[in-house]
């Protein structure tokens, strides 16, 4: 969001959708009791498993979220793969 947009009260997200997004994360955290530490641990282990099949998976680059769906909640992980190292293995 640009400085000028902010200045002139322009396109900020409506606060209700911000509230909803925040609540989704909070409720999932409340329900699954995932602390930041256990989440970090999970990332390290995910990176460990994936590294057996893929080159250069960095645990610190992984983003893990739990999203609330209508029937189920979902675990969503974004795992960047480093390019330009085709000679591994």
């Amino acid at each position: 969001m640009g400085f000028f947009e902010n200045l002139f009260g322009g396109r900020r997200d409506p606060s209700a959708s911000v509230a909803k997004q925040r609540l989704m994360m909070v409720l999932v955290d409340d329900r699954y009791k995932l602390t930041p530490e256990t989440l970090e641990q999970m990332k390290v282990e995910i990176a460990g498993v994936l590294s057996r099949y893929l080159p250069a998976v960095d645990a610190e680059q992984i983003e893990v979220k739990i999203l609330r769906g209508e029937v189920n909640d979902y675990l969503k992980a974004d795992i960047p793969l480093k390019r330009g190292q085709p000679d591994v293995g």
Partner: protein
Amino acid sequence: MQRSNGEHMGRVITITSGKGGVGKTTTTANLGTALALQGGRVVVVDADIGLRNLDVVMGLENRIVYDLVDVVEGRARLRQALIKDKRLPELCLLPAAQTRDKDAVTREQMIDLTGQLRREFDFVLIDSPAGIENGFRNAIAGADEVIIVTTPEVSAVRDADRIIGLVEAAEKGPPNLVVNRIKPRLVNRGEMLSVEDVLELLAITLIGIVPDDESIVTSTNRGEAAVYDHQSQAGRAFLDVARRLRGEEVPFPVLQEQQGVLERFFGIFGRRRS
């Protein structure tokens, strides 16, 4: 409801929320009055031991002789402690003790008490204290059903989610939801969680949408239920909740924006010019 042995079995319904100040007591008073207006025999029970409130909301504070703890500890018989409503002979209040702490009653005593009340009444409504501690656990101990009240705010919705988990763990069946203090104008502007948002987050059955309504302040000041006030949008919403509780299918009306005096003035002004 009738048991096979012919004994009368009323429904025990606990009204709770987790967070305080979202309208549990107002909901209990209005729902109780509405159910009695619709022909049910109703008792409303204030389970907030130490913070007695349901009596003043219903305008019955001057009639209290005995309270819930007196009954439980055997100083008074149940009939002596029940206070008849000013207008409706089929509506009674069992007040909370004001001078005792919240641990003056046990879960077993609450189950026993609600068991006695359901033989005399069609509906036993229990106004739960806020929080997730003993007071709340006692309030749902004897319940067949639970109604959760929330407002469209992050803190209230979060606490409601906690409570839903606890109610489900206590095997009370899926609770029903009342979304209180909706401001249609803010919702339309995208600045307040909508009922749909709240339902999506909490994923339980909706039983009532109550608009934010200044008439609640007035009726509470006077110790009269809003359901008597035919001008009150909130009052009408509570009458609908009562009908749904009794099994009627009542559609949810689209909420009208409440206009302020200025807007009404400019509204008229604008129309004249066009």
